[in-house]
């Protein structure tokens, strides 16, 4: 059997965060409004209306281009892409054909410790289409569709990546990295679930060592990062099987069916649309002044990769930890805030960077998954997590009590001190109190005492466990051990 190498290129649509739509002054926030309320003659495509470019959207596309090391076109233009469908108000979509705003960039990712550079062909502007709701009439069973035009004209940015990706995992990482950049620079919410971030994949395979590309298949309808990964995995396997059985790959568009875990054919190339692109006569070519690009470049914040490197260098985090806490800009802000609060309360510390990372990634990560809420949006504020870590470091509570406290704080939002108090989690450090408990346990277990006297050192561990049980885990374990040895030795 021939060994194949996958060749994958992604096309990603991201809705831009702007106040108004791409070509009119309607609010771009289409989800919160009742259907067909954020509309006007322009985005309804009524006859005689004309588009006017939203420069905020252009600015955000340029910002994205700069973050992805793209060249920015000095002159860009808009084109009409024609196809008949009721979600398209004008019967054509204003897009960009041959002169995109950004071109020739790249995105660096790290896959299993190996640095990979994925090329970016272009980033261009588009307008989103209306939303269709397919329904069935209850009585007759007849199908019909409802149109919500709120979404029509919302600014959309399409990034076309080069076919440099070689595995489903690379594709997933690349997508995560791209979304992270969009979130860092504040141009898109990047939510695949809400549809503000959509990905299509072009997948082909070729025998290892062969340079020529195989026939590519476009895969659509992937609504999560997981889906992208699985759909590509499936497609690679499907294509390999077809070729190994002596078949031929058909150039076509396939859709991922989540429930079945497979891709199905949507349409072949022969039936593909002819979009009849031509320059949009209602919009003159846009001249992008270099001074404007320079101004926009000033707005570029620290990017994920830069922050990761800083966390590694300045805070001594491992590449894994640094990658985890910088996954989203707001999580990284949260993490940094924990450290800052800790230092404010407790003064400088050599361990807080690592312990804050552990808490953020592991414990809060788990709570975040369970509660379906991002760490940074949970009621547990960064300053309270800092306070909690401080309590552990001051040995006021133990780690297991701290976990109980964190779980509670994650829903109540109360401070660490109040939570520890309310739940009675503070450690007992009073030697006389612990001493009483130790005496009680020793008296109650004469056989274990005999074992100890006979030289069985493990018997001491038994007593520690018993004391912790009696004190409901609140006794300071170090003091407990010390007192047990002391009292047992006194009996010798």
């Amino acid at each position, binding site marked *: 059997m021939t060994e194949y190498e996958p060749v994958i290129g992604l096309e990603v649509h991201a809705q831009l965060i702007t106040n108004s739509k791409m070509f009119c002054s309607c609010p771009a926030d289409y989800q919160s409004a009742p259907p067909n309320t954020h509309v006007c003659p322009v985005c309804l495509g*009524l006859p005689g209306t*004309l588009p006017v470019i939203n420069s905020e959207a252009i600015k955000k596309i340029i910002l994205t281009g700069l973050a992805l090391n793209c060249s920015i076109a000095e002159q860009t233009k808009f084109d009409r892409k024609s196809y008949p469908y009721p979600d398209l108000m004008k019967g054509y979509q204003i897009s960009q054909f041959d002169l995109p705003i950004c071109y020739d960039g790249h995105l660096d990712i790290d896959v299993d410790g190996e640095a990979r550079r994925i090329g970016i062909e272009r980033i261009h502007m588009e307008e989103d289409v209306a939303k269709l709701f397919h329904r069935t009439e209850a009585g007759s069973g007849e199908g019909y569709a409802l149109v919500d035009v709120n979404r029509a004209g919302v600014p959309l940015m399409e990034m076309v990546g080069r076919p440099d990706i070689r595995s489903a995992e690379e594709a997933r990482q690349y997508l995560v990295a791209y979304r992270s950049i969009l979130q860092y620079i504040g141009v898109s919410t990047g939510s695949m679930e809400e549809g503000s971030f959509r990905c299509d994949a072009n997948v082909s395979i070729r025998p290892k060592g062969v340079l020529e590309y195989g026939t590519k298949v476009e895969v659509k309808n992937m609504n999560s990062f997981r889906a992208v990964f699985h759909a590509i995995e499936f497609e690679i396997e499907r294509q390999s099987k077809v070729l190994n059985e002596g078949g031929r790959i058909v150039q076509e568009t396939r859709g991922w069916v989540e429930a079945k875990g497979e891709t199905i054919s949507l349409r072949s190339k022969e039936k593909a649309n002819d979009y009849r692109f031509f320059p949009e006569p209602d919009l003159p070519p846009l001249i992008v002044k270099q001074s404007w690009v320079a101004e926009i470049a000033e707005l570029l914040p620290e990017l994920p990769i830069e922050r990761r490197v800083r966390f590694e260098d300045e805070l001594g985090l491992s590449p894994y930890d640094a990658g985890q806490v910088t996954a989203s800009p707001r999580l990284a802000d949260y993490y940094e805030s924990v450290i800052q609060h800790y230092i404010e309360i407790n003064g400088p510390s050599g361990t807080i960077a690592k312990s804050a990372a552990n808490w953020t990634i592991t414990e809060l990560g788990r709570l975040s998954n369970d509660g379906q809420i991002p760490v940074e949006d949970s009621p547990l504020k960064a300053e309270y997590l800092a306070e909690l870590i401080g309590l552990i470091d001051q040995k006021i509570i133990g780690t297991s009590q701290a976990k109980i406290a964190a779980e509670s704080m994650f829903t109540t939002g109360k401070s660490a001190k109040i939570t520890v108090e309310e739940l009675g989690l503070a450690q007992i450090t009073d030697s006389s109190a612990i001493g009483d408990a130790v005496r009680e346990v020793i008296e109650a277990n004469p056989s274990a005492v005999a074992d100890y006297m006979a030289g069985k050192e493990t018997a001491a561990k038994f007593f520690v466990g018993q004391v912790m049980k009696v004190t409901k885990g609140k006794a300071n374990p170090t003091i407990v051990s010390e007192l047990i040895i002391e009292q047992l030795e006194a009996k010798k």
Partner: protein
Amino acid sequence: MADQIHYQSVRQMSDALLAKDISVIELADAHFERIEQIDDRVGSYLAVTPERAREQATTAQASIDSGNVTPLTGVPMQLKDNLATRGIPTTCSSLMLENFVPPYDSTVTASLANTGAILLGKGNMDEFAMGSSTETSAYKLTRNPWDLSRVPGGSSGGPAAAVAGGLAPYSLGSDTGGSIRQPASFCGIVGLKPTYGLVSRFGLIAFASSLDQIGPLTRTVEDAALVMNAIAGPDTNDSTSILRPVIDYSIGLKDGVKGLRIGVVPEYFGEGIDPQVAQLTRKAIQQLEFLGAEVSEVSLPNSKAALAVYYILAPSECSANLARYDGVKFGFSTHDAPNMMAALEATREGGFGTEVKRRMMMGTYALSSGYYDAYYKKAQQVRTLIRREFDAAFEKVDVLITPTTPTTAFKLGEIQDPVVMHANDVCTVPANIAGIPGISIPCGAINGLPVGLQILGPHLSEATLLRTAYAYEQSTSWHAQHPTI
């Protein structure tokens, strides 16, 4: 006075309003009366709007009484039915838009309303402005007031017939390949197509976006200047509108043509042009020379390709512009179909006329993958050549003078061959291709049918065109002649 007022100029009507010889409402009513009397024979109006006129008249009269006026305040007018009027049906003379009532005004509709103009009604036109005779209107025929058996030209045939027949002192039309100038020529009036981008296209229902331009049809050159004062200027709703301060086109109108360099283009006097039309045009040029202009010959060989370029670019753009008429949101709709795509096809089959379908088919073909380079792209390249040729010509001369149309108005139903019909635009199309302004003014008659003279100038040379046209007009009496109807 009452029977004479229909043929007065905008300026004269304005003076009469200011002198309180007549009230705004009386002036509007005089027009509604005339429409009532003769428009069933002319057919220049698709709809009259007396209620809107009455509302506007109240405001306009108040402005006049308080002295806050422009020369258009209180003067009635008509709008071609492809200009959006809020609350008033705007049909483009197409079944497709039979019940379309725009919730917005076009920029020019609003500009005229703001200056106190009174809307009489909407003018008939070729369907979606595609035609040269107004015969493609889905609703009615418009007849030439000079000879009711003849066409008024098109596509602004309703506006031209209304102005020529004393049914409105002025009207706004749109000109994509000659649609203002050709009917103005056929009807013996003044028609100005401004520089592309000088008048906002917002609210003009698009035919071919890179060629469409709104302009006035009037009975005198001065009136054209007055209307331009109200409608020209930048508009933030139209990204192709030219950012340039508004100027007063009536200033310098009477400065004469002494030293003006006129270019005569032999290519516009050759094959296909009625020799009598050519002769009258040459005579007009001699008249301008007599008035002090300097005449020389300028060759524009690429102009011949303009018609071919036009019949690729205009259909291409219209094929996309008219794609929105799917029967879903507004307008004509056929629901009786097995599925969505079939309903869309049935709607478009029933809603559009033959000429519109023909042009959409041509455009769809020209833009199709595999044909784009040979048609659309090539046409754009030739368009650039035509533009440059005009640029070069205007380094040598100030204006070019040509016939407006190859012939005088033809008979209704006389031209059936679309290619022959399209050839009617041969003299006017180059200005749209180059985006330059052009004006047609009457320069004589053949067998009682008006002949038009076209003056072309470089970008934003409207003031020069108007000055040249005014000098000629004032030295002749063509503009004072009106059809008897």
